[in-house]
């Protein structure tokens, strides 16, 4: 499993599709353990979809599945997200 682990960076393009801005520098708070990290620093696993996990407790923060014309986004593991607006 370790070999497939990437950083939030690796999902930067996908997250940009969802949020319309770069959120790898946004701070996300894990609903599981309360830790806060830049999304660029969380763990990412790529399989049929993209799963973001907390680097401290490994709880799922967010998962995204893409089909040809749709994105399904589950963000229930993120308690809050602090975005920097231009």
């Amino acid at each position, binding site marked *: 499993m*370790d*070999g*497939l*682990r*990437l*950083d*939030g*960076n*690796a999902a*930067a*393009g996908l997250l*940009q599709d969802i949020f319309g801005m*770069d959120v*790898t*520098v946004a701070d996300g708070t894990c609903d599981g353990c309360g830790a806060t990290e*830049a*999304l*660029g*620093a969380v763990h990412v696993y*790529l399989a049929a979809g993209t799963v973001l996990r907390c680097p401290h407790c490994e709880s799922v923060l967010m998962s995204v599945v893409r089909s040809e014309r749709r994105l399904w986004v589950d963000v229930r593991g993120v308690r809050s997200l602090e975005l920097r607006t231009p």
Partner: protein
Amino acid sequence: MTLLLDVDGWSGHRAGQHVDVRLTAEDGYQAQRSYSIASAPDAGMLELTVERIDDGEVSPYLTGDVRAGDQFELRGPVGGYFVWDPDVRGDVLLVGGGSGVVPLMAMARQRAADGDDVPTRLLYSARSWDVVIYRDELQRLTGNGFEPSFTLTRERPDGWTGYTGRVDDALLEQVVPGEPAATFVCGPTPFVEAVAAALVRRGHAPERIKTERFGPTGG
């Protein structure tokens, strides 16, 4: 293999960012991969250095079949997290494993282009001297506070005086005197995790260590 791309409407990038390259087959099948940008922001052409994965879906095209004048879809620059901060004060440590050196090279190039003298140490781990990317340029950039060092893990040329073996606690002890203000580690997942863990064991603050892992995503 290095590609120079002339990108329509390129908005410029920051050293350390990547692009997503998407190829679409005639039947509509799409494959997408991320590649780090090797060029400095003001270099004119966008430079990507791509490692060929023989059974991959994108890299065999980019390293073999692509011809001058071909067009393909590219998104970016993406990712504002693993980027060089031109205003950084204090020492910087760059640690690259294999082609993980690519985004670090963009940083070294930007630093040189800016005439920046912030003390920057690059530790580059490679299997052997012949697979070290940008060898000559790295030697040329040496000085003005930039100090590259190399460790070879499998083979070394006769008379090699650089480091040997993997980046571990003992090697870091020799190469990295104190705690840098900022550290960037890029390479295959096991490499990045081993280096980051060793730095944290030395007492370096995890929040000052930025990592970019790349995994076996099919090339």
